[in-house]
């Protein structure tokens, strides 16, 4: 199976013009873009990713390309397309790669209803998953980055894909999207970590993507069994605290973090109930990443 990193930049650019069959967990995206910035970001951040057979089935055909007309010259913009349609307003051209990443998440969140989709980071150790559901700002991506760089296998920093039987959790093992102060926090703690470009002034603030460690992406299609559901909350100056959470409360909080719980109806209820039944549930508050890592070592034991 071909690794993306085996392509040189010219070869990657050619594939992006015709369609790069990029595996991301259980999905295959056919990614197209004529933009050099997108090519370079993919070369840096997806070097370890595997490519699907070119003639195989692609779940999503996505493309990021410049907006034509006057926008080529005045305030250049880019547009994201999925299966030939543009679901969003254009963004500044400098945000092209970030737009691609957001668009790929949107494709899955809006269409992959064969599974329960939780807005959650997922990591694994010893075959058991830690699911970190949380609203934006809860600190789940920062915590996911720290755990990933601390030796846990990343399944996702954004979305837990739960089988409807509730017994297996999938992820897409794509670059971790860090925002604002988290970027420098992780850079300082792990100076060898590989980041992509920094995108300032996006609708989510300043954004940069962190490359998962070698070996993460080739295992992206490997699911994990339920282990723990941890609701993180970053709070400046807080003492690290990991407290058991009643399963009834964990269920309701997780349902509130799902993209498609209501859409799935009874099937979503049964999937989430099975996941919660098979997991230990916790509320976690933290301020310091090293203390957080120590607390999670206890969960892995």
């Amino acid at each position: 199976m071909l690794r993306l990193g085996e392509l040189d930049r010219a070869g990657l650019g050619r594939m992006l013009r015709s369609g790069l069959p990029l595996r991301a967990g259980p999905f295959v995206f056919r990614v197209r873009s004529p933009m050099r910035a997108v090519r370079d970001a993919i070369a840096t951040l997806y070097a370890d990713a595997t490519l699907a057979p070119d003639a195989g089935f692609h779940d999503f055909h996505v493309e990021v390309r410049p907006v034509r007309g006057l926008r080529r010259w005045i305030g250049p913009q880019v547009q994201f397309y999925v299966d030939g349609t543009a679901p969003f307003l254009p963004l500044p051209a400098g945000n092209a790669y970030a737009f691609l990443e957001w668009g790929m998440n949107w494709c899955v969140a809006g269409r992959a209803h064969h599974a329960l989709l939780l807005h959650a980071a997922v990591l694994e150790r010893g075959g058991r998953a830690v699911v970190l559901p949380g609203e934006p700002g809860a600190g789940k991506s920062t915590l996911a980055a720290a755990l990933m760089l601390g030796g846990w296998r990343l399944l996702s920093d954004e979305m837990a894909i739960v089988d409807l039987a509730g017994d297996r959790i999938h992820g897409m093992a794509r670059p971790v999207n860090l925002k604002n102060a988290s970027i420098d926090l992780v850079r300082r703690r792990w100076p060898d970590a590989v980041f992509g470009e920094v995108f300032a002034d996006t609708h989510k603030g300043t954004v940069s993507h962190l490359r998962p460690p070698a070996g993460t992406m080739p295992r992206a299609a490997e699911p994990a069994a339920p282990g723990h559901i941890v609701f993180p909350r970053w709070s400046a100056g807080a003492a690290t605290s990991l407290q058991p959470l009643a399963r009834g409360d964990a269920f309701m909080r997780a349902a509130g973090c799902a993209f498609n719980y209501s859409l799935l109806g009874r099937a979503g209820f049964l999937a989430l109930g099975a996941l919660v039944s098979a997991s230990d549930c916790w509320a976690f508050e933290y301020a310091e990443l090293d203390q957080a890592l120590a607390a999670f070592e206890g969960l892995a034991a």
Partner: protein
Amino acid sequence: MAFFAWPEGSVVHEGFCNDTYRLSDEATAVLRALQASGPSDVHALASASGAAPTRVTELLQELQGLGLVGPC
């Protein structure tokens, strides 16, 4: 109707309206007793759930208000 009853609480899904409810521990006990016995009366449910008959009556009214149980 589907539900999960854990030692630390329960949740119920009511299919007609696609609503999910988080139930108290004592409501869970009554619901579990009712599910185990089928159609029943207040005194039998009180005996099975450990709650007082007056409290069972109140809980049944609350569960009926949610559409989870009905008179027979």
